[in-house]
Each structure stands twice: as C-alpha cells, then as structure tokens.
C-alpha cells in the first residue's frame, strides 16, 4: 500500500461504510471469509438529535443512557431522554398513512384509526410521566446479568401529549373478560426478518384504563424523537419502560396475560420469592414486573465537585416511586450513619417525578460521598447496597452516590 493510495482508500472505505451491508446468513462460515458485520462497525458518530454526552452502550441496536447531571431539568428535554432499542428503528415512515388498529379476542369490534382520527376524535392530554427501563442499574449486580449494562441514566420524565388509551379502548369496546392489552410496533428484528416481531409487551387492563395511560405523539410539544417511537407510542408512567411500546401500530385486547415476544421466560420478570445471588430459577417461578420501586437521582452537583472550606452548596435532584408517590427525601454525607431531610415537591401530576433539594456544608477537609435516599408513601426506602439479586438484573434501586471533596 502506498501513500498516494491511502487517502483514496480512506475515502472509499468511508463511502463503503455509509452504504453498509445487507445482513446475510450463511449456512456455514468457513474461516477467513470477511464477516459482513464488520462493514457496519464504523466509529459511532453518536445518535442524531440526542446529546452527544449520552453514554452509548451499543450501536446495534442503539442503546444510550443519560449521565445524572444532564437530567437536572425538571422536565427531561428530548435530546437528553435515553434511548433503548430491542431491534432496528423503522424506515420509510409515512405519517399520513400511519394507522393504529385495536383488535383482539376481548375487543367488541376491530377499529383502525389514522393519526388524524386520533387527534380529532379524542380529547388531548399532556402529562409529565416518568419512564424508566426495568434494567436501569443492572451494571452493579454480582454475579452479572446478561443485557444492557445500564448504570444510572435509563430514566427520564418528559412531558407527553396524546389521547387517553382508555378513551380509545372504550370507543372500540372492551369485553368483560378482558385481562391484558398487548402492543405491536414497527421496529425491525435484528436478523432483518420482517416477519419477526421484535418485542410485544403490555399491561393488565386496570393499568391500561388509568387516566394517565396515554397513546402519545408528542414529547415536550414536539413530534416524538424517531429513537423514542415516532410517530406514535404508548406511555405507562411508573412501570418498566418496555411496557410503553414504540412505533405503535396495533393494540390487542387479550383474554389472557399477553404472550408476545419478551413477555415470557425471564424477560422483565423477577423471582416470586427472594433468591441468593447466582441461583438458577425455573421460569415458572418468575413473576412479571409491574410498578417500579422507589428511586432517586442527584442531578446537581455533578459527581467530582471540590468545595472550598465550609461553603454551603445546594444538592438537588428528582425522586419517583412507580405507581406510588415519594413521601420523604434524605441525603447522607457519612455513608448512611445519619440522614438529613430534604425539601420535596409534590409531583406535577400523578406518575411525574418529584423534585427535591437541600443545602450541604462539609464538616472538614477530605473526601465525602453524598448518598440520596427516597421513601415512598408505604414507608419503603431505597436500599444502600444492591437489592435482591435476580437472574436478569432488574430493579436495582440502590441509593445514588456522588463523590465530593472539601479543600
């Protein structure tokens, strides 16, 4: 390879990587044959329309989380709301012909709505709703669980606009034997097989019928970001975000617990009884995660702050508790030996996160950690160590910790 060829080759390779490669499955792979996946492995340029400070966990499928200090806004901006994909984002979306079909064995009838139908036939509602991935915090579990190794940032609380799922379901008619709803989206299976459903989850009828359960088309007054379900999605505040189906085109009203991909096995399930770390749990002993546990974040200051002397500084963040409300908020600077109560606001609406703040002064020069602990309306608090181990590493709601120094 000569030097004159180098620049030319770089250009060709760059074009090649942009065009990419069709995914092809060989029956066998003799050694030495160039894997097609490599052509897609260009250095990742970040996710369009998302802050480039998001921490990208994978590029295929795209998964990225938000560092806590970027979640300081009371309402999470679209470019800072985390990204979670099980498959590939749909292509060639034509909004004017996008439809939502409601059907199923427990639906009185089958109806299909365009986006225009939804917007004109039903009352609009705008709600701030907390959406958190069931696996947020997974990276701390030992032994480790397979899956995206989220740390703290697979959570957000944007403002969502849409219609009540309840209003649409009632328009279709819900039979008295209805048990669950299941959603279907237009994301594309990683294998490229268009006949395979990537993920199809849902919620029990009672959750579907809550006044905060939305079919949404907007985030913070703008169209949903493509990565977060454009043009239409479900939003169920306080439940694992995988219930809030994206790129929504069908809802099935079921007379059984929905059984789409990623409803069964161990997906989004925890053991029915507590287990020791590393235990093999049979599938039939697993139960579906519903309301997320109480949790909180310190969004200011960013971890790593050096404070001069006894200067007082504000510490603030948000707290949430699934279907419940947060009753109290405390922080500790001595590893949980003592706790200081914080000011805590009521949520803007049910299932929105709650803002808290306090003022801290460090008692002497040295290294400190600030730990944040929320208590929900039943009196449940966040644990200080990683809670009950479970095979898939869900529901780590241990106290958030930041490091600070006084000099």
């Amino acid at each position, binding site marked *: 390879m000569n030097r004159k060829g180098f620049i030319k080759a770089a250009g060709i390779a760059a074009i090649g990587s942009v065009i990419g490669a069709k*995914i092809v499955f060989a029956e066998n792979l003799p050694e030495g044959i160039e894997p097609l996946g490599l052509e897609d*492995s260009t250095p990742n340029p970040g996710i369009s329309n998302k802050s480039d400070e998001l921490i990208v966990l994978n590029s*295929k499928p795209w998964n990225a989380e938000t560092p806590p200090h970027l979640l300081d806004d009371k309402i999470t901006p679209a470019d800072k709301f985390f990204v979670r994909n099980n498959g590939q984002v749909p292509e060639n979306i034509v909004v004017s012909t996008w439809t939502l079909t409601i059907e199923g064995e427990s639906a009185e009838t089958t109806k299909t709505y365009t986006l225009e139908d939804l917007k004109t036939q039903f009352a609009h509602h705008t709600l701030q709703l907390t959406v958190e991935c069931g696996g947020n915090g997974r990276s*701390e579990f030992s032994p*480790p669980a397979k899956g995206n190794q989220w740390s703290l940032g697979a959570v957000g609380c944007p403002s969502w606009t849409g219609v009540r799922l309840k209003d649409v379901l009632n328009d279709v008619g819900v039979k008295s034997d209805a048990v669950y709803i299941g959603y279907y989206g237009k994301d594309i299976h990683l*294998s490229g097989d268009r006949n395979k459903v990537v993920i199809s989850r849902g919620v029990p009828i009672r959750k579907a019928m809550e006044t905060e359960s939305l079919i949404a088309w907007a985030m913070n007054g703008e169209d949903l970001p493509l990565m977060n379900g454009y043009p239409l999605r479900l939003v169920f505040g306080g439940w694992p975000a995988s219930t809030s189906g994206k790129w929504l085109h069908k809802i099935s009203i079921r007379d059984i617990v929905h059984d789409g991909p990623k409803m069964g096995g161990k997906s989004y399930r925890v053991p029915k009884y507590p287990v020791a770390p590393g235990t093999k749990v049979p599938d039939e002993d697993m139960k579906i995660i519903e309301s997320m546990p109480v949790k909180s974040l310190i969004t200011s200051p960013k971890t790593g702050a050096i404070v*001069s002397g006894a200067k007082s500084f504000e510490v603030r963040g948000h707290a949430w508790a699934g279907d419940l409300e947060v009753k109290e908020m405390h922080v500790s600077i001595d590893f949980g030996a003592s706790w200081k109560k914080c000011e805590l606001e009521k949520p803007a609406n049910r299932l929105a996160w709650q803002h808290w703040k306090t003022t801290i002064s460090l008692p002497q020069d040295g290294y400190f950690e600030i730990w944040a602990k929320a208590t929900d309306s039943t009196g449940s608090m966040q644990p200080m160590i990683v809670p009950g181990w479970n095979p898939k590493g869900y529901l780590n709601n241990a106290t958030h910790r930041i490091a600070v120094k006084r000099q």
Partner: protein
Amino acid sequence: MDENQLDPKEKKDVVINLIRTFNLLHLMFWVIVTLLLLVWIDPDFLKDEYWEPNTSEMSINQDFDELMRDSVVNGIHVISGLKAEGDYQLIVSYCGRCHSYELVTQNRATKSGWKEMIIWMQETQELQDLGEHETPILEYLATFYAPEDKGRRPQLNQAEINWYELE
C-alpha cells in the same frame, strides 16, 4: 594593522561566508538524516515501484480493509473492541453479523451462561448452528469475559471521577 590579519570588512565577509556554509551544511545534514529515516521506516521508498500509482482500486480497498480489520492496539482488536487473545477471530467472524460487538464486550458470564445466550439467539434471533466453532467460541468467552465478583455493591470508580471546582 598587521597584513596577515583581516580588516573589519573582510572579517565580516569571511564570517558571513562561514555562516552561510555552516547553514548549508546544517541543512544538508538534516536532509540526509530525513532520507535515512525514511529508508529505515520503509525500505521500499528507494524503489521505483513505490512511486507508481496503484491502478487497481479493488486492491486498495482490500489492502485498507485488511489493515483496519486486523488492527490490534494494546491487545485490543480495534474494530470490535474484543480482547485480541485466543480464538477472538471466531467471535469477530460470527458475532458482529446482527448486532454491535458491545453486546459481547459489555457482558460477563460463565461458560454455561454464554451457552445459554447462544441457545437463546438460536431459538429466537435466527442465529445459525455454530458447529465445530461453538466449543472454541465458548472457551474464549468464558476465559476472557468471565464474571468479576463485585460484592454486594461496587465502590464508586475513583478513576472515572473528573474533579472540578464547584462555583
């Protein structure tokens, strides 16, 4: 003034000439050093063929891809991020076809844990039978991507903290 000595103007000329000669020698020194360095780095530099344009585009693309594809820096296979040890090439060949390599490098599991993931992919994600390659693949994963014990809760990672003055 002594005849053998130079007068001020002649002195000045001599000095100027000396400086010019020195500068020239200095420049020639660096040119020679540079050429020697180039030859040392790439002996082909001296050959005529080095300077011929390479007319085969396919050859350029393949050369470049080969260069990038196999590149290993500090024990890490650059394109995939995998540890360049043992049978890593098998993982490079098989495991980047549907998803990014982070799905491998982020996870840790025992051999049976990795085996379970392979079975799940074969059952639900259209992964093909790995045949005779399955054993070395599992061996690599269980060796280089085995679980690390983090206890009941890891410490804050001090190395990742960027200390700053709080306003």
